[in-house]
């Protein structure tokens, strides 16, 4: 079943094909006139409640959010990546967004793979799946921790932070770097210490998860907050609205078919639904990881000129790369970041809520500004 994903450079990307041209835009109905007493309340760029610098203009006449505009370009960075070798390009792509760095690099490598012949074997692909799933676990834990922080929910907040640090340490021990920097290269994957087990995480998270969704005040902050049921949504936001969208079952590059896992969905399409979907995904990712044996060896690859598009399911939705290579050099590159789509979904779903609902809805989408405010030169 074809679905529209988003604008990737000059292409409009669908789940199974892509066309040149611009995709239909998620329009946010403009409330033109500003009634008596309404004004623009600016929140950000630099604020204690915002994790990254982002400018948010809320049109309100007091507590009630009439319209919202997110401006991610305060920290817009120019990345000098053109005419660089593929190995150097990976260095830049890793540092676009630390939280999704593995998804970005692997989606870039999947695009490269489309225009190269290599004897890549299933162990290396499994390791790539391992990286993406570990990144998903850490990021979903981080989103839930931010939700607990917005509600001032002391005990689960710090227990989740404790868990996130443990996951980071396991990644650091396994790959040598906590955010997968310097791990992936075109020829091999650097392993630091293969003997790392993840058993303790599931038990610990299960106790936190079961009690966090029992607390009525906490649920009340999430239910009915930021409802969005739009077939152009992606990632956890789509799955929370009951859509069965996931790049892991649509793309063939990574052998997800060899693993037994299910796509978790919910139907309330609000911040609470996104919390449930992300928590269930943590359990599913842990199940996938338990089925992978960590073995790494080099493989030969020959990259020839041409264009390729790769797509991977990052923790907040589809992350896709378009690459054009000319005698070993990256000549043109474009990024479809999940957060750019999530920002539009967020702006559409935030209207008609009140100020204190903002932090919950914003955090539940897991938006990273660093992957939106990016220009390749």
């Amino acid at each position, binding site marked *: 079943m074809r679905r529209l994903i988003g604008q990737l450079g000059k292409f409009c990307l669908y789940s199974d094909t892509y066309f040149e041209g611009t995709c239909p835009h998620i329009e946010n109905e403009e409330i033109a006139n500003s009634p008596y007493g309404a004004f623009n309340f600016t929140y950000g760029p630099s604020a204690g409640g915002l994790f990254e610098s982002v400018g948010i203009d809320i049109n309100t006449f007091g507590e009630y959010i009439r319209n919202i505009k997110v401006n991610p370009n305060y920290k817009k960075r120019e990345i000098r990546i053109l005419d660089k070798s593929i190995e150097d390009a990976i260095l830049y792509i890793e540092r676009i967004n630390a939280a999704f760095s593995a998804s970005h690099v692997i989606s870039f490598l999947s695009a490269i793979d489309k225009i190269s012949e290599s004897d890549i074997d299933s162990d290396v692909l499994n390791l790539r799946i391992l990286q993406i799933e570990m990144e998903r676990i850490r990021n979903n834990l981080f989103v839930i921790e931010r939700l607990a922080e917005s509600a001032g929910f002391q005990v689960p907040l*710090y227990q989740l932070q404790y868990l996130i640090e443990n996951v980071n340490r396991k990644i650091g021990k396994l790959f040598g770097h906590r*955010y997968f920097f310097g791990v992936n290269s075109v020829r091999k994957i650097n392993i630091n210490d293969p003997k790392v087990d993840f058993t303790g995480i599931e038990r610990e998270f299960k106790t936190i998860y079961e009690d966090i969704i*029992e607390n009525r005040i906490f649920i009340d902050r999430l239910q009915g907050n930021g409802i969005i049921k739009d077939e152009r949504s992606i990632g956890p936001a789509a799955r929370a609205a009951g859509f069965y969208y996931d790049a892991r079952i649509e793309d063939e590059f990574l052998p997800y078919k060899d693993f037994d896992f299910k796509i978790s969905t919910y139907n309330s399409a609000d911040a609470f639904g996104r919390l449930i979907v992300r928590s269930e995904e943590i359990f599913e990712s842990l199940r996938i990881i338990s089925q992978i044996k960590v073995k790494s060896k080099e493989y030969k690859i020959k990259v020839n000129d041409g264009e390729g598009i790769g797509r991977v399911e990052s923790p907040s939705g589809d992350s896709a790369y378009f690459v054009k290579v000319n005698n070993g050099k990256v000549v043109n590159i474009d990024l479809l970041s999940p957060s750019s789509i999530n920002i539009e979904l967020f702006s559409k779903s935030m209207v008609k809520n009140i100020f204190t609902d903002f932090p919950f809805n914003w955090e539940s989408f897991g938006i990273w500004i660093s992957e939106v405010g990016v220009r390749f030169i």
Partner: protein
Amino acid sequence: MDIGSWGEIYMNWFLKGLKKGIKTEKFPKTNPIDIAPWSTELNGSGNVNCPTKAIDNESWNSERCIYCRRCYPLYSPTGNIDIFKVNKKNNIFRRSFYVYPIDIGTCGGCNLELKLISSPQYDMTRFGIFFTNTPRHADALIIMGIMTEGMKEPLLNAYEAMPEPKLIIALGVCAISGGILGTGSQIKPDVIIPGCPPNPYTILKALIEAKGDKE
């Protein structure tokens, strides 16, 4: 609004908290328990082609290294976390040190690692270190990320809004020298904490020393 929802003050989170117990490590008195090797000091010999020229004439410059592992195996991590430099201290912050983080162009890594020093393992509050949400209450400005055009004005406003005496801390290679993505922060830092991103142990130890503790 059914009164029952907040009426039942069941104590289960209170009991769960007690059951979990205190998880704070004894660091810095004891050595760090578990560090990702590629965020500590590198040493070795031989010349290598380093993309950010962190290694020239065989000496490793921590302020430029982005840990890309191209110099491996000639250069390898030693596990030593004391790679920060504190040029200016003020011991009126010894027992109460409020820091205001400002992201002027990060990839998100430094923000995440800085946030984790408040986690139970590291627990910055036991040293009197706290986050605050306005530079007016802050004693130190933690600058993260490369200098982007859009964040020049907020950075200067934040610096100006902070009452004296204040410290400027550059966190991560991007803020110190710009790494491979751009240039470092406009404001000259008093304390630099290299790393891409720096390890929570390094950040914590640097802050402890910056606030004037006799470490």
